């Protein structure tokens, strides 16, 4: 989705590009209006999904309220619908597709814990939940349950998988001990 309705002008945009790393792969994308380019109004969520084909990142509210589009940027969980792609120069981004071990393909312990606890129902909020929790565990490998709840308090889940998510995150934490 677009952050703002862009005004279509005839004035040419000065050619420039934005380079950033997604799941270990460096992308340099021109700013422009052609397919494969970045419009100034493109959100990171849009670019990930529509330009780079990484549809694991979900868009729900598209206005920073629900946490579904959460990715990790330079170590922090961010709402990718509230980040403009043209602001991502030099950033390092991890999406849900990038959590597996790139060499072995093994799932991250957090992903395994989500499977073991059936910590999802419809699964639409799950990528955002996992990325938020992952950022927490990177920062704080042994959080309390309260800290887990606090970290996930911006993640909307309508099926109410919260309880099983907490169990899964705490289990992944134990595994790390």
């Amino acid at each position, binding site marked *: *989705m*677009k952050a703002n*309705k*862009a005004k*279509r002008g005839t004035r040419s945009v000065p050619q420039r590009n934005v380079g950033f790393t997604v799941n270990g792969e460096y992308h340099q994308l021109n700013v422009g209006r052609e397919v494969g380019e970045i*419009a100034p*109004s493109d959100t990171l969520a849009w670019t990930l*999904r529509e330009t780079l*084909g*990484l*549809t*694991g*990142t*979900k*868009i*729900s*509210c*598209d*206005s920073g*309220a*629900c946490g*579904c589009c959460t990715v990790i940027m330079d170590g922090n969980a961010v709402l990718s619908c509230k980040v403009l792609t043209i602001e991502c120069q030099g950033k390092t981004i991890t*999406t*849900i*597709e990038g*959590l*597996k071990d790139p060499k072995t393909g093994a*799932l991250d312990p957090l*992903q395994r814990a*989500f*499977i*073991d*606890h*059936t910590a*999802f*129902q*419809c*699964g*639409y*909020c*799950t*990528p955002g939940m*996992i990325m938020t929790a992952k950022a927490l565990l990177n920062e704080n490998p042994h959080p309390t349950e309260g800290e887990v*709840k*606090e970290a*996930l*308090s*911006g*993640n*909307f*889940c*309508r*099926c*109410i*998988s*919260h*309880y*099983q*998510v*907490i169990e899964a995150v705490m289990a992944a934490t134990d595994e790390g001990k």
Partner: protein
Amino acid sequence: MGDNYRYIGKPTPRSDAAGIVTGAVLYFDDLKFQNLLHGKVLRSPHAHALVKRIDKSKAEALPGVKAVLTWEDIPDWKGGTPRTLRVLDKKVRYMGDAVALVAATSETIAEEALDLIDVEYEVLPAVFDLDSALKPDAPLVYDEFPGNIIPGGTIIYGPNCLKGVVRGDVDKGFAEADVITEGTFGYENIPNALPAESVGAVALWEEPNRVTVWGTSQAPYMDKVTLFHVFNRQVEIRTIGNHVGGSFGTKIMCWQVQAYAVLLSRATGRPVKVMFTKEEHMAAFTLRVGSRIHARVGMKKDGTLTAIQGTWYVDTGYYSFTTQAQVAVGSGELMIMAQCPNWDLKNIVVATNRNASGSTRGFGGQELKCSFIPLLCLAMQKAGLDPFDVLKKNYVKPGGGYYWRDGQWYQYRGIDYSTAMDKGAEKFGWKKKWKGWLTPTAVNGSKRIGIGVGVHGNADVGEDAAEAYVQLGYNGTATIFLCVAEHGTGQKSNYAKMAAEVLQIPLERISMTPADSLVTPFEFGPVGSRGTYAIGSAVINAAEDGKRKLFEFAAPKLGVHPEDLETADGIVFVKGHPEKTLKWRALGNDRTILGYGRFEPDFTLCNCMMSFVEVEVDTETGKVTLLRVVLATDVGQIIDPLGLEGQLNGCIGSAGIDSAIFEETILNPASGHILNANMIDYKWRTFSELPTIEHVVLETPIPTHRFHAVGVGEVATSPGPSAVLMAVSNAVGTWLYEYPVTPQRVLRALGKVGNAKRGDTK
């Protein structure tokens, strides 16, 4: 139980689990299409108006715009019940109604084109609630519906569709009553089930009359049926479902977004995608129905109900699709929870100039009970009775019965749920905590604790026909052909478990076709609680049929009769002679064994959910905190324990229990504008405020299901809201009747603030 199952009841990972946690699972919005156009909807800024003139020339001239459609450009395609609502009309009936459709090469261009469409409206007076809609000279939402009353009944439930409950002699019933209470009670905050994924569709039209539709519905085959009628039975439709990002009943209402995509594809010859923004999802898609009853109830001193009489007013917003069906099911559900010999319960479905209400988890029953139980509470208070005892006493038991949606009387042949209720009460500590009506359980300074209880059950566990195929593979595999899109209940994985159990092959050897109406037989869709009993039985029957055909093939080769055979792990063997075997491989790779299974509707069973809630009310701030929920049910046999746990925890979300505490859709009473159609102003529960939820799940075998199970997913939400109202009233010591119990309402009830109303229901 005596059943030693290999998969049933065991915790097994969902078959889509790895895809969900890696982001690989494809939801509708993740699909890619060649040559795709993007569709957008121009929406009305008025709640009620005639479209006098539309100038679309500027929009059509915008580079990248491929089609602009108004009511003048489209066939006379209509939906709704009865089929009255044109897909685009010359009249708009709510703020947000569709005025024009645009297809363009990008979403941005389509949005720009919307701004270039010039519409002249003649604004009409509007009705936003039951009171204004039912006034004698009220403006009419439809010329076809005098008095704004939409005719009752729905054709899919047959010619005698339940339109009201008339039984026995209410005068006699009231004469026998020891207490009679009467009043008007409502559940009119029209909360939104609000799944995370919005709604959308892609359509690809092929001349002269074929179309394929991809969408967000969990019931693609029923979409095919619905659209067939909308398109005047002249279009051949193929529907394809995907992973669904939550539905809670709402996404069987996708026919409009699908029709928009179809019209735009028909106009452009290209695939067109229409995906509602979150604002459209919240302001132009399904809300709960508004519910209000004016009724009288008679009861004996021992809690026996003697008469129920009154009218149920149902506000459906600007049109009805499923509302008459919800009225039928809801009325039957009330009979299930309130066994009473004498009834006269009428109903009226009312059209108003706001976004439409329709199918939502609880499907009429939740809405009716949230209105009825407060009335029942007054009777129980008057008789000095404990609500747990009364609700348990009046719930249907073997030998009891009810009218169901087709207007027929059904004798209940299920189990007595009293044991589950007793176990729930014990777990909750009900008898110890109950201090009497309008009496808090405990008082700690300014904080008071109150408890409440509610009950709900639905005879939809066996509703509607279901069909499935199960194909056996020569290498010991099986494929289930079934038109169900996984929408979060995990049922697709459960069907694999059921088939694996019948065929005794490893779970990973079961696969399932996509939900594609061109590939699979008919399936109504996983709605209500029919997934386990109805759909599950179709899959089981198909697997049994496949196994029977396998044995017919193997028997002559083993020199025995088919009934002498058994199979496990891709090997057929003779019972009692395990050394006499034939591998499925003997079928050869040039043979297909296809089992067919069908389930015929069966309304003689219902499920049951009792909710106990404990709340804390801060009498200084008016805030209500949900402390604890205990859910009590009996599922016959657990299929998947972790999946069941999730479904039961769902009681607080999706316009469930929280619709009594803080969830509401707020309409500007002057303009009809929805003021909170975004996920910040529409309140939802966060991880920081989770109550304790405990489950009491009994397993008393249901004889008529192969694995003795019934579904309970849908009903987890339904008994909760009225229980909260009861609990808060008990905590503060005075009745609260309006949903949700906002701090303002609590403080008003306590006499701490005045009567100033903010978008309150009347």
